[in-house]
């Protein structure tokens, strides 16, 4: 093995001498301002491209499931949705924020640029009554999200309440500005859900 030349630092530079007086020099910081900020009275600054919540342009989404395949936490599942009685032609990603690691690889792979992200990041709520279950979140349009963020400017989630009906699979988003958005989950997976007659047959067999 050939010898490697390390530029070794002189020992005199590394060694220190113990001192009884120098530790007291730290007292000068008593007369300086603290670096901490008072949350929630003061706000932290968020970087411009902070990896926060997802946004989805439903019209652009082609339902290719690239996001579901790349997701390291397997938080994304494709869902078939029905809005105002009309079924969406393609499935849309549904995000489980209990699993999401906010790596945003799903945004990187999105071929049409439908999936995006916004700086909002607050997963917590202030009071117990405000709690929202974020296991089945179909992201909303980026412009809607941006508008809500600009109005409230606190990096919170855009909804106040999510109603989820276990039987009819109807979901109601109550936005913070009072708007209500309803849709129905028809099924999960890449393939379209089977018609109701098919489901009945399975029941009979069982």
């Amino acid at each position, binding site marked *: 093995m050939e010898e490697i030349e*390390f530029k070794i630092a002189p020992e005199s530079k590394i060694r220190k001498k113990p001192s009884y007086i120098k530790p007291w020099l730290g007292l000068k910081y008593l007369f300086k301002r603290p670096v901490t900020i008072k949350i929630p009275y003061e706000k932290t600054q968020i970087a411009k491209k902070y990896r926060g919540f997802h946004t989805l342009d439903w019209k652009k989404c082609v339902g290719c499931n690239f996001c579901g395949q790349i997701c390291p936490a397997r938080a994304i599942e494709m869902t078939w949705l029905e809005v105002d009685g009309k079924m969406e032609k393609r499935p849309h990603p549904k995000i489980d924020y209990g699993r999401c690691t906010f790596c945003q690889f799903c945004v990187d*792979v999105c071929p049409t640029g439908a999936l995006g992200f916004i700086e909002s990041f607050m997963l917590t709520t202030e009071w117990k009554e405000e709690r929202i279950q974020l296991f089945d979140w179909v992201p909303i349009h980026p412009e809607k999200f941006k508008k809500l963020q600009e109005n409230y400017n606190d990096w919170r989630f855009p909804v106040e309440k999510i109603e989820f009906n276990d039987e009819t699979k109807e979901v109601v988003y109550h936005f913070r500005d009072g708007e209500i958005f309803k849709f129905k989950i028809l099924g999960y997976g890449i393939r379209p859900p089977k018609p109701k007659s098919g489901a009945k047959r399975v029941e009979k067999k069982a």
Partner: protein
Amino acid sequence: MVAQSELIKEARENGMDLLPLDKDTYELFFGPQHMATENFSIILKMDGHRVVKAIANPGFLHRGFEKLAELRPWHTNIALLLRICVPEPDVPENIYSMAVDEIIGWEVPDRAQWIRTTVLEMARVSAYLFWIMGLSFKLGVYTAGQWAAAYRERLMALFEELSGARVYHIYTIPGGVRRDIPSDKWLRQLKDTVEYIKSKLPDFDHLVFENYITFKRMEGIGVMDKKFALAEGVTGPNLRAAGVAYDVRRADPYLLYPELDFEVPVLGDGDALARALVRRYELEQDLYILEQLLEMGPPSGPYKVEDPRLKNLPRFKVPAGDAFAHVESTKGDFGAYVVSDGKNKPYRVQIRGPSIAHGVRVLEQLLVGARIADVPVILMSLDNCPPDIDR
């Protein structure tokens, strides 16, 4: 004098688990809730306040990284593997990316190499600040620890701007980096931060490294000699403090390190104080490296490899082959061995972590004969990373 059995009885009544071994010795569970051990536990056999035997008891953070990495697409593994070492997540990202680059045969663009080197050095500085915080908390100098946390915050803000996240950056990917440098303002901010931290180093010296309490508490404890360190495979600052000049950045240069100038600190004492002083000097050198990098400036060009295959990341396939890449982290020599069989998932990812070398067997040896108050100090002077031990 209270009889031993009565003491044990009293301890049991209060829910304490002091197991009597014989008349004078008892067993003490140190951690994992203890602040000093950070999700790591040591079972100590004590004779009075001296340690007779120490048994490292890791495993509280086991997540099976290496197996999980075999089940996920190539790029996705970045989001997983960086959790191996929380204080410096860029190191696992980089070793994995460098190994994958080598298998594919990609030549990473100059700009990406510059960014990677800068990010690695920033991670080193922030990890050393984090370590100063830990050490000063264990020594009882809480003020210095809080300063270190505050200065680290500046680097975290820079990371946030660069990568979009504060702690888990998920920034370096095979073939380059995920985002370009945000703006020239970011470079200026980095320069200011480097200067700022450099100006604050004397304060740390005054309070921690030149404090007579530090010398009283750290001198001569946990002595590790050269032979023992080499036999156990200890690397990094711990090995340099034992008197061996070895640094991966010089021994097996990677990225831009051949062009950079820095000194390798070596001390022959091998005790806790030597380890602390070596780390202190390395922090200074890392800031010096960052200054050089900023003087160089980022070269123009693309920040990641342009390859049509990258458009379909879930189906991205790496040709069959294997590669090993390692970097110098603040803990030591961090390496990854990646094997591909030509599919869209790795066949095997093996991580060579530094903490397993100095965090288990070496720690057990060094703790013998130490006072109970010195246990956290020795543990912190070794600077182990519990998630890396468990993996």
